[in-house]
């Protein structure tokens, strides 16, 4: 009887984990964009975490950090370079599970708009 309870307990924990993973937004993970430049490739990576934080990395250098929220196919993003309290909104379009395009809906932060509008990224495999 005690063994049965133990197994049931383990099963409950496992189901909780599985339900969390399956509920995770497909954006969670690392997304890459490689841009050509006269001085060599520019390797952009965005890390979207399950806790609604994200970071931008360029050629291995962390360059921006902020928060994001997703509702349906709209992502709202803020970052430290623009203003952590202000959120720009972008439409997300997944061409496939590993291919994502950002299109601006509304963002008054010029630098972010220029960088993010039309940005297409490819998802990196998990480490």
């Amino acid at each position, binding site marked *: 009887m005690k063994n049965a309870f133990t197994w049931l307990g383990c099963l409950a924990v496992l189901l909780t984990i599985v339900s969390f993973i399956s509920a995770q937004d497909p954006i969670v993970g690392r997304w890459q964009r490689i841009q050509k430049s006269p001085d060599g490739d520019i390797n952009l*990576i965005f890390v979207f975490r399950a806790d609604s934080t994200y970071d931008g*990395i360029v*050629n*291995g*250098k*962390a*360059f921006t*950090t902020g928060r994001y929220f997703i509702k349906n196919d709209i992502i709202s993003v803020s970052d*430290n*370079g623009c203003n952590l309290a202000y959120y720009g909104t972008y439409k997300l379009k997944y061409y496939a599970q590993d291919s994502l395009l950002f299109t601006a809906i509304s963002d008054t932060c010029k630098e972010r708009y220029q960088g993010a509008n039309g940005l297409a990224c490819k998802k990196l495999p998990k480490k």
Partner: protein
Amino acid sequence: MHEPEPATSLELGKRLFFDPILSGNRTISCGSCHKENLAFADSVAVSPGVNGRLGTRNTPSAMNMRFQESFFWDGRATTLEQQVLIPIENPVEMDLPVDSAIARLNTDAFYRQSFLRIFKELPSKSNLAKALSDFERSLETSDSPFDDWRVNDNEEAVSASAKRGFKLFNTKAKCIQCHFGPDFNNVEFRNIGLFDGKMHVDSGRSAISHRASDLGKFKIGSLRNIAITAPYMHNGMFKTLKEVIDYYDNPEAVIPNSMNRDTILTGTLQLTDAEKADIESFLISLTDRRFLK
């Protein structure tokens, strides 16, 4: 020991960077002021040039140039290729006209052969600039504890103090308003209050742009490796990061009646001593691991 012959423009640029052949009296190289162990900056307020001559500005780090759009404290050069030739000619730095430098390289068998091998042509102004700028462009650093924390989600990479400091940097201390992006600077010029027209008279950007609104403005410096590039500011007037943070906390207390100071720096930040220490911890976390050994 015999040094290997440079095989690329970058390798040739490295050789030239550390060779005093590019100074008038053959005593000063780029590396004399841009010291490799100090993130290619110097440890004195103003570096001595040929015959001990002194200019008026602090040697900036020559690292992390790839994403920069202007060079020198006043932005007088807009490309790295322009930048690398200017100190060679400057009378208080290397004091050698570039034409004379080219003539000197053409009479040096080693350089003559190296340029021919790499560029398929004899030393010239353009290939000298290319070699030096290719070397400088290679001096990128992206392996700091801060990067490890943000890029690899390594929570152990930086201290709790540094994490608090990063939060302050982004909020109460307002540093992020000028110091953002991959190298923690941006392309703007700002007047942080170090011009008063009396004791502090370097007009900065306005001497280049000829605009009164640029009076006292200087290029925003990168913060990568900042812990090892003291002293600070365009004139090297602050010896420690603590002095810098104290200044930003209350600029008026250090330089009263400065002219044209940026509105971001109006009033005081009212940082506590603990908060100042946290910001310093964060700044130290921007030091590349090659300098932490």
